[in-house]
Structure formats: C-alpha cells, structure tokens
C-alpha cells in the first residue's frame, strides 16, 4: 500500500502557493498595463484573493497538524495539484480570461476541478479496503476549523453572496459555461445556469466519493445513486431541456412549501407557468399540487421523510455528498435541539400564513392587502430562499455542518418531520444490549441527533428531524442500528431493553 506523508501534502500546498503567487503577479501587471483580456478591477481583486489563498496555505503549513493516512496514494499529490490549478483557473476566468476564451478557460477552470477532484477521490478510495472509514474526519483541519477549512467556508459563502446579489462579478466564470449552455438550452448562460452546473457537478463528484466510501452498504449505494440522479437529471438537465423547447423552467423534484411559489397564484407564483406552458404548464402545476398534498403524505407514511430528504431533494443531495466530510460539525446539544424546534416550526408557520394571505388577496383581487403580496413574496424569498437556504445553508458547511437549512429552516422538512414523528412506519431500531456507547452514531449524525442516547438504552429512534440517511447504522461498530419500516404499534417504545425494570433483556 502506498502511503502519503505529511511532506507530500506539504508539497501540494507549496505547489499551489507558487502558482497562486505567480498568477497574482501576472494579473497585477496585466491590470497596470491594461492587458487584454483582463479587466483591471477584477484582476486586482482576484490577485489579492490569490495572495490571500497563498497566505492561508502558508498558515496551514505552519499550524495545521493532520495524522497521515495509510490510504492515500501518490496519485493524490498530482490529483490535488490539478484540482488546485483548476481553482486558480476559475480565478483567472473571473479576472476576464473567461469572456475571451470560454472553451479553454472552462477546461482549465471548472473542468480541471471536476477531473482533479474525481481523480483525488478515486486515488483515495479505490485502493482502500471497503469498510467504514471516517479516520481523520474529526482531526483533519479542513473539516475541523483549520486555516484551509475557514478559507473554504469563506470562499463558498462569498460565492453565494455574489450569485444572489452581485452576479455581474461572476461574468468571467459565467461565460466559460456558455458553450455547454448553448448545447443544453440553446441560449447563452446566465449566472443561474453556471450556479446549477457547479452545484450539480459538486453533487456528482462528491457523489462518487460517497458511493465509494460506503460501497460495502447496499442502502448507501442505492441512495447515493438516487440523490445524484435527481439532482443531475431532474434538477439540472431536464429544466435545461425544457428551456431548449421554449417551455417553463420547472423543477419536478421541488414542491410547496420548499418551492413555495409553485402553489402561489399570480405572477410571483405559478401564473407564469400557466401562461408560458400551455397544457404542459397545467400539468406542472397539477403535478406540484399532487406531490404536495397526496404523494408526500403517502410516501412519508410508508418510508418516513427520507424518501425525500436524503433520496430526492437537491439540498439533501448536496448535504449527503459534498457535505459528508462535515457531518460531525452539526451542533448536537439539547439546546440546539430546542432552538431547532422553534425555528423550523416557525418557518413553517410563516410560509403557511404567507401562502394563505396571498390566496386571500388573490381571491379578493387585491382588495384587502393591495400590492402587499408581492412584498411578502420578495421578503420571504430574500430571507429564506437566499440567505437561509443558500448562503448559510451551504456556505456554512465548514462551520456548522451540512444540514443547517434542513434542520432549522426548511418548511418542507418541518411538515415531513411532524408526520414522521406521529404517523409513519419509519423508525431506527436498536439491537438489544449490544450498544457500547462509543458515540460514532451521534458524532456523524448530520442532524445533530444524539443517537447514542437512544441506542444505549435500547430505545427506538423516532425523531422528526431524522432524514434516514443511514450513516448512524453504517458507522456503528456493533451493528446496533437498523433503519426499518414497520407497523405503527409499538413504534414509540420506551427504554425497553436496558433500563426498564420489568422486561429485562439482560436477564436473558
């Protein structure tokens, strides 16, 4: 088995630092002499960013300590370098090169990150024996608030801020996705297309990682294929093709209340879908309503909220793939649980009230609230859609874990959770007295559920927030946890096995 030592990682960091500084120098010169195709202001900004990145890597080299892993091969050094170069390529695109050479900069930017990232993942996981391996997850500085972790979080958060509010700053990168946009959609790219592409590639590449990492568990293999499929095909390619055929851009995997506008009347709701889509538009609106009110309760009754949250949803798709290295960062105190219940149900109340107001207003033809509905729609979209789900929901992965939005904000998760808690066949069962209280389950629960609390007293885990990802079961070294669908009777068992006095499994 090849091993990679600290020195090898150090070499990769050094290599990327050198490239960052060299490119920063070139950009500054380009800005000074106004060299085509670079634009002066973006070039200076990007050059500063590259210097900042190089400084962070230097800090990381000096301060971050990580245990060497036995499973890194020498390929990793090259794959890591390619990924780093791809990141620099994205920066150069942003400085102006993307508009001048879209195809080339696509290959050198997003393309290199995709290929390099996939190569790193293959090099790390293919030679390693199949089996649970979270070694280093809680000591690796990237996923534990080290210098590189902070940098990663700030860059991701910054990216979301630009996408939502300053898309013109991303012009150079958007242009590199033009060629693909022409093929898929028959028109030039906009920043949302670029964002969707980057999002879907992240889910795809890190989906490969999740598949390989958990390949010894059939549930994880199927589930990973499922989330990647729904994101890539139904949430990226299909909407693109709809645009190609001049149809409304519609997402068949999102429903009210997560995609609240699909059940709102008028122009800020499904009005434009009906107007632009004709018969297909009617189908889309009916589809959304049927999924919200009929399919969702039925599927949740049989399988719990997991059918959506960890199998279909795009936010879940990102969390289960890109987010896997950050699971353990989810807040897991009882206080955070208390806060979670207030926030997520508050979020649900807001969307229900907003929806009701808008329908009433629409029915009365604006007589009551006048144009207030538009303001409600915009405010909700800004607070929940942009800030909560996007900037914090994904940008904060390296700070607060992967399911911040799903746990504290998503109104869809709130409804599914209420049903899962009170009226669903889903539960996680525990195996008698076998729990050794090791805490792997609690540590790697992305929803911050203290799974161990239940397992060590032999109690079924029935929690509103559980998305049924099955990782607690995967990481349990004693095979104690099992995801199951079964009869409602006896589902909410008390502490039956270890703690209860009359039936005592330990007497067995």
């Amino acid at each position: 088995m090849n091993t990679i030592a600290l020195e090898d990682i150090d070499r990769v960091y050094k290599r990327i630092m050198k490239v960052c500084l060299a490119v920063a120098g070139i950009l500054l010169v380009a800005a000074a002499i106004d060299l085509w195709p670079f634009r002066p202001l973006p070039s200076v900004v990007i050059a500063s960013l590259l210097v900042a990145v190089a400084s962070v890597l230097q800090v990381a080299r000096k301060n971050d300590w990580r245990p060497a892993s036995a499973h890194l091969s020498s390929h990793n050094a090259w794959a890591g370098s390619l990924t780093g170069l791809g990141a620099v390529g994205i920066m150069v695109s942003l400085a102006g090169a993307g508009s001048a050479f879209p195809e080339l900069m696509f290959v050198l930017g997003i393309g290199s990150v995709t290929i390099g990232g996939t190569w790193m993942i293959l090099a790390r996981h293919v030679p390693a024996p199949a089996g649970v391996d979270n070694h280093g997850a809680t000591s690796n500085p990237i996923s534990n608030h080290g210098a590189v972790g902070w940098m990663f979080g700030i860059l991701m958060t910054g990216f979301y801020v630009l996408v939502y509010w300053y898309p013109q700053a991303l012009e150079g990168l958007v242009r590199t996705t033009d060629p693909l946009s022409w093929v898929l959609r028959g028109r030039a790219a906009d920043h949302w297309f670029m964002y969707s592409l980057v999002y879907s590639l992240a889910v795809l590449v890190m989906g490969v990682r999740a598949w390989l990492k958990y390949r010894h568990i059939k549930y994880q293999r199927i589930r990973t294929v499922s989330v990647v499929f729904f994101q890539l095909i139904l949430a990226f390619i299909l909407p693109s093709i709809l645009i190609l055929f001049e149809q409304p851009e519609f997402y068949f995997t999102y429903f009210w209340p997560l995609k609240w506008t699909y059940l709102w009347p008028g122009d800020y709701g499904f009005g434009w879908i009906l107007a632009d889509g004709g018969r297909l538009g009617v189908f889309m609106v009916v589809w959304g309503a049927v999924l919200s009110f009929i399919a969702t309760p039925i599927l949740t009754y049989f399988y719990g909220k997991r059918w959506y949250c960890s199998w279909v949803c795009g936010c879940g798709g990102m969390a289960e793939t890109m987010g896997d290295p950050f699971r353990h960062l989810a807040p897991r105190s009882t206080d955070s649980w208390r806060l979670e219940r207030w926030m997520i149900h508050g979020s649900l109340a807001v969307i229900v009230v907003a929806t009701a107001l808008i329908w009433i207003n629409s029915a009365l033809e604006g007589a009551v609230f006048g144009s207030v509905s538009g303001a409600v729609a915009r405010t909700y979209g800004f607070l929940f859609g942009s800030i909560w789900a996007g900037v914090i929901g994904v940008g904060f992965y390296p700070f607060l874990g992967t399911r911040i939005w799903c746990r504290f904000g998503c109104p869809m998760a709130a409804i599914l959770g209420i049903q899962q808690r009170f009226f669903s066949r889903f539960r996680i069962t525990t195996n008698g007295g076998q729990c050794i209280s090791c805490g792997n389950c609690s540590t790697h629960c992305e929803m911050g559920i203290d799974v161990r609390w239940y397992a060590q007293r032999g109690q079924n885990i029935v929690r509103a927030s559980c998305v049924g990802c099955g990782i607690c079961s995967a990481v349990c070294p004693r095979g104690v946890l099992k995801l199951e669908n079964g009869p409602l009777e006896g589902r909410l068992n008390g502490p039956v096995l270890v703690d209860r006095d009359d039936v005592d499994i330990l007497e067995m």
Partner: protein
Amino acid sequence: MHIVIVGNGIAGITVARFVRKGSAARITVVSSESPFHIARTALMYAYMGDIRLDDLKPYEDGFWSQNRIDLVHDHVEEVDAERNMIRLASGAQLEWDQLVLATGSRPNRFGWPGEHAPGVQGLYSIQDLESMEKWTRDCRQAAVVGGGLIGIEMAEMLRVRGMDVHLLVRESAYMDFMFNQHESDLIHAQVARHGVHLHLDTELDRIETDADGRACSVVTTSGGVLDASFVGLAVGVHPNAELARKAGLEVDRGILVDYAFNTSVPGIRAVGDCAQFRDGLAHGRNIEQLWYSGRRQGRILGRILAGEQLTYKPALFYNSAKFFDLEYQTYGNVPPSDSDDVMTRSWTDEGRCVRFAWSRSDNHLLGMNGFNVRMRHETAGQLIRSAHKGAVAPDTMRTLLFDPEFSKLPTAAMAEAVSP
C-alpha cells in the same frame, strides 16, 4: 444517606444512575481518570480521528447536575474503613454511609525486560490514550503484543495513523480458543488486507531500548528482532484492587464480593471489573471484565442501593467486537470445535459466516456466533434460554437476523446449514 462511588467507568456510573432512579440519596462519584464519564470502548475511535475527545462522553455535562449526581475529579489516596472516610489527593476528605469501589482494571505486564520503557504501554484509560498519542507522534514502526480483542484494535489504530505494524500472537491461529480455523482465517485476511504484519506462534521475549531508554525493538522468544519505537501490550487486564487491599478488604485477584456486591467490610461494596465473586457465577468465571457486564452489574447494584432486594446473576453471555471491517457477535456458548457433547454447524459465504452450537444429547441450542452477520439479541436470547431443539425454521432465521435494509441473506439456506 451519602453514597460515594470510586470510579466513573461504566460500572460506577451505572450504579449512580440507578440509585438516582429509585432513591433520593446523596451521590458522589470520584474519578481521577476524567472529570466526566467516558466510553472507554471508543478510545480507539478518538485516536483514529473518527470522533473527538468530547464525543467520548455519553451524556451531556449538564446531565449530572440535573440528576443530582456530584462529580469529583480527584484521586482517592486512602480508604479509611473505620471512620467511613476516603482521603483524596487534594487533601480533601469525604465521609460516606455507603462506599462503592468501581476501580476497574489495569493492563497486564508479565515481567518482560523493557516493559516499563517509554513507548511501551497498554490501552485502558484516557491517560493511556494520551500517552499513546505522545509516543506515536514520530513513530514509523510499531509492534503490538497480544492476540485478543484489544491487540487487534491497537494494531488498527496504529495502522490507520500510517505506521508499519507488527502484531505478535502466541496462538497458531487468531483467538483459536474461541474460533474455528475458518473464523480465524477471516480475521487473518482482514489483518493482511489492512497491511498489518501478523506473526502467529510468536511470543515476546524482551523489549530493547535505545540510548535514551526508549523502546526501539522487540525480540521474540525464537530470537526474531522487529524494529518498533512503540510497543502496545494487550495481553489482558487484571482487577485494580490496590486501594481495597490497602484498606484491609479481602482481596484475591479481585476484591472479593458476594452476590449483592458486599465486600468483607460492611458498608463497602465493589462492582465491575475490580470485583471477584467468592462463589463464582453460573458461566464458571468469577470475574467479569466486559463493558456489558460492567453495565449490568452496575445496574443491579444501583437498584440494591436504592432499596431493592436483589442478587446478581450473570446474563446469558453475549459479546461483540470488530476486527477491522469484520463485525463479530456471539450469544451463549460456542466452543471453537466439536466435542463429544457439542456439535457445531455453520453457514459460510464469502467474508461472512454464522455458527450454531448444539448439544449432542438432545439437539438443544447452546449458542451462536456471527461474522458480518448481525443477529437480533432478543431473539437469540429467547432461542438459547428456551433451549430450542432441532431444526431452525426459515422464519425463525428471518426473525433472528438483524441485517440492514436491502441485504438479501438466503435465510432458508442459512437455516438449513446451521440446523443440527
């Protein structure tokens, strides 16, 4: 009523929890190992970076004050049985009406030259973990002595951190006192797959040290020399009974107790790894040193101290382990091989197997084990306790299995293969 418990391991802390469930007595738990109860079963995961040190705590810090269980992080220097006092290292003294000694175990050492050198240690406490962290930081080659559950865990820990690891095992097959050849081979394959060098039929002779006095190699009884700047000793544990011995309690290997955990001195009880039952237990041993037995003993003693009239009986034996990626469970009694009284029948598939042990006289079930096959504790217990006779029905096998969703085990074939 003031109950003082010495030791916050699983036995001591379970006593505290179950006293609180049934009584308003004042409870104080004293430990010098850690301020809060930790799961020592997870020390290996903390070392490998699967969990953080903070994740070792099964209960939130506020749990203890909510349940009015006082925690004292201090070392007990002396038990004064006449004045009902313990004296702590800080100089403080605590008076008790009832004292519980739950002082656990200590790793064995057998007098090998070099066994106390820096870089040579066992793995039991959080201090051992810290020491292991310290002595392996710049270590490239390591050796582990011991062919049991902890030995293979230590080998995995060191290997995960990138060291070249030699595992020295006295037996000619891994744990051949419990496993048949096929089962041992499954473990051998795991060890090889993870790149650990397994040395069977190999015993330690001595540990050599370098100029600084630190371990540098191990020498086997056959004269082989293996470079190792860290040496893990995993050759069993013995009861930590020093405190009791100094206090004048009757001690054999462990602190001698009756079935209600009473020691030779009224008012003092002992529980968990450190206790030795005077009259032996149903399974034939008189000391139990598992996580599960510590929890069970603690639970019974807690209820006794809360006022119930109970005596301790061991559970139907069960245990579990994980050998790298190989999960292992056992229930009841499964000997390594067949004998005049016992016949074993097994089902095997690539990388996994189950084995049932049957009494030859009347074909009743004695026990079962499984490798990468999970079995339901409740069902396994019922079958063994009710002395299930004869063939296992496919439906019974289906109920018995605790396999994850989508795993399609051939229950009919398994049932047939394990039936007598």
